[in-house]
C-alpha cells in the first residue's frame, strides 16, 4: 500500500518544500512555469517505462528525443508531410530494434547505446547548428492556458490516465507486462514474444516522438544536444515511480509522478534553496540520491 503511494508522497514532499521556500511558486503561473518542462520528461519516462516493462533498458531515448526535436524544428515545420514520415519511420526503427534484440538475443543496453550515437549523429545532420523553429500549432498547443488548472497538470493527468488504461486495464496490456514478468509462461500460452517486444519498443518510439515534440513546443527552437539528459532522468523517473528493472513491474501513474518529482526536485527546489554556486552541482545529485534512496528504503521495509 505504502509502496504504491510513495511516488505521490514524494511529490507532495517536494511540493511542500517548494511552497515553504518560495510561496510565490504555488500559483497558476508558478505551476505553469515549473512544470511545463516536466511534460517532455514525463513522456520520455513513459517511453522508458515500456522497454523496462519488457526487462530491457533504452539508453538512446535522450538522443532520440533530441533527434525528434531537430526534425520537429525543421522538417515538420517546413514540409509537414515529410516530417511526419520521418517521425513514423523512426518509430518503425524502434520496432525493428525490438525485433533485432529479441531474435538475436542481444543485450538491449548495447544495442541502444549504439543507437544513441546514431540518433545523435542524425540530429546533427538535420540541424548542424542550433536553430530551427517549432511549428505554430505546436507552439500554441504548448502555450495553451486553460482556466483554473495549469496546462502541464492537465497534460500529466491525461498522459497518466491514457497509459494506465492501456497498459494496466486492457488484456493486451497484461500480455505486454507479462512478457517481462514471465516470458516462458506467456510463450507456452501461445503468445508471440517477438510481437510483444516489437510492440513495447514501438510504444517507446511513439512516446519518445511525443516527448521530443513537446520539448520543442516549449523551447520554440532546437539544438542537437537538447535531449541528452533525458536518458538518465527517464530511468530514474521509472524507478522513482515504483517500477522495477526486471519482472514487468511498472506503474504508468507512478512513472508520471516520478518524472514530475524529479523535474521539481532537480531544478526549482535547488534554485529556491540558495545553495552557494560551488555546491549546486553536487547538491543536485544529492537530492536525486536522497529521493531515490527514500523509495528503496520504504519498499524494502515492505518485504
Amino acid at each position, binding site marked *: 500500500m505504502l509502496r504504491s503511494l510513495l511516488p505521490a508522497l514524494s511529490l507532495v514532499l517536494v511540493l511542500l518544500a517548494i511552497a515553504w521556500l518560495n510561496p510565490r511558486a504555488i500559483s497558476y503561473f508558478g505551476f505553469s512555469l*515549473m512544470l511545463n518542462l516536466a511534460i517532455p520528461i514525463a513522456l520520455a519516462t513513459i517511453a522508458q517505462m515500456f522497454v523496462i516493462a519488457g526487462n530491457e533498458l533504452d539508453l538512446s531515448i535522450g538522443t532520440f528525443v533530441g533527434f525528434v526535436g531537430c526534425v520537429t524544428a525543421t522538417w515538420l515545420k517546413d514540409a509537414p508531410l515529410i516530417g511526419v514520415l520521418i517521425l513514423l519511420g523512426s518509430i518503425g526503427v524502434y520496432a525493428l530494434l525490438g525485433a533485432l534484440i529479441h531474435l538475436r538475443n542481444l543485450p538491449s543496453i548495447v544495442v541502444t547505446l549504439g543507437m544513441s550515437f546514431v540518433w545523435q549523429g542524425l540530429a546533427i545532420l538535420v540541424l548542424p547548428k542550433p536553430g530551427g523553429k517549432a511549428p505554430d500549432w505546436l507552439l500554441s498547443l504548448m502555450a495553451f492556458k486553460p482556466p483554473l488548472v495549469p496546462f502541464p497538470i492537465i497534460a500529466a493527468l491525461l498522459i497518466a490516465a491514457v497509459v494506465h488504461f492501456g497498459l494496466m486495464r486492457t488484456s493486451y496490456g497484461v500480455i505486454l507486462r507479462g512478457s517481462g514478468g514471465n516470458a516462458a509462461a506467456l510463450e507456452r500460452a501461445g503468445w508471440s514474444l517477438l510481437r510483444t517486444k516489437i510492440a513495447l519498443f514501438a510504444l517507446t518510439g511513439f512516446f519518445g516522438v511525443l516527448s521530443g515534440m513537446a520539448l520543442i513546443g516549449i523551447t520554440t527552437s*532546437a539544438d542537437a544536444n537538447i535531449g541528452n539528459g533525458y536518458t538518465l532522468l527517464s530511468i530514474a523517473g521509472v524507478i522513482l515511480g515504483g517500477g522495477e528493472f526486471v519482472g514487468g513491474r511498472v506503474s504508468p501513474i507512478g512513472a508520471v509522478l516520478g518524472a514530475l518529482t524529479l523535474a521539481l526536485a532537480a531544478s526549482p527546489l535547488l534554485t529556491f534553496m540558495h545553495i552557494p*554556486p560551488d555546491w549546486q552541482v553536487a547538491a543536485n545529485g544529492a537530492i536525486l540520491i536522497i529521493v531515490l534512496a527514500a523509495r528503496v528504503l520504504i519498499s524494502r521495509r515492505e518485504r
Partner: protein
Amino acid sequence: MKRMLVLGAFAAMLASGTALADTSGKKIAFSNNYAGNSWRQAMLDSYGIVTKKAVEDKVVAAADIFTTADKEVPTQAAQVQNLILQGYDAIVINAASPDALNGAIKQACDAGIVVVSFDGIVTEPCAYRVVVDFKDMGKQEIEQMAKFQPKGGNLLEIRGLAGTSIDDAIHAGILEGVAARPEFKIVGSVTGDWDQTTAQKAVATILPSLPDIVGVVDQGGDGYGAAQAFAAAGKPRPTIIMGNRQDELQWWKEQKDKDGYQTWSASIAPGVSSLAFWVAQQVLDGRTDIPHDLLVPYLAFTQDDFEAELPKIVKGGVASHEYTQEDAIAAIKANIK
C-alpha cells in the same frame, strides 16, 4: 571611501545624463550552464568579486549565481523559469544554446525581467547581448604580426572548436587581415579546439608538410601547444600569437628573457561576466537608450605590459579583468551611434 566610489559612480551616471531610477532594491540573478574549465571558473570569480562589492555598496539588493548541474538546454530553461518565479528583476545569462532557450527567455521578458546574455548569447530579440568583437581580434592578429614580421611570409592558422560562432568570427577576421596584407599567406590550417594538448598534436602532425613558417595565428589556449610542437620538431621558433593563458604568457616571458622574443596576446576576458552585470544594472536603472547588441573590446597584452599581468594569473588560469560601472557606461556609449 566606498561612499566616495558610489558617489563617483553616480556622478558618472549623471554625466551621461541618464540616471533615472534607484537600483538598490533590485535583484539580479546569474544563470550559468557550465563551470568545468579554467575560463568559466575565472568568469565566476570575476562576477563574484564585482557583485559582492555592488551588493555591499547597496547598488543592487542581491546578485546570486546559479549554475546548472549539466550542460543541457532543458535544465537551463527550467532554471530560467525558476528564476522568473523567484522574482528577480534581471537575469544575466551565459546560455547553453543560442536558440533553444528562446522560449524561456521570452517568458522572462514577458514577466518584465531584463535579460542580458554574454559569451553564450541568446538570439531572442528582447534580450541584450554582450558580444566581444572576435572578428576584430582576428584582424588585429595579422596587424600585430606585420609589426614583428615586416617582410611577411607564411602563416599557420590554428582554428578553435568547429561549428561555434566564435571560431567563425576569429577566422573571418584573420582572412580579412590577410586580404589587407598580401605579404602574408596562410599555408596551413589545423583545429586546436582552444586546448594546448589538441593544438600541439595537430601542429606536430602538419608541420613536416609545411614550408618555413614565420608566424602562427590562433584563437587562444593553443599558443603554448604550438610552441611545444615547433620545439619538438626542431623547427625555428615563429612568432606565435598568444591567448592570455598563464602557460602562454609564462612561455613568452621565458623566451623574452632569453633573446627578446616579441609577440602579442589577446582573448576574451572571463570578467566580461561583470560587464554583463553592469549592463543589466544600467537597464534596471531606467536607461532605455542601450542597444540590444553591445560590442565590447577584447583583452589584449603587448610586449610592454604582459609581464605585469603574469603574476596575477593563477597557474593554469587565464588573464581576466573586472569591469566597473564606468567601464560599462563607456562601453554602452561606444555602442550608441
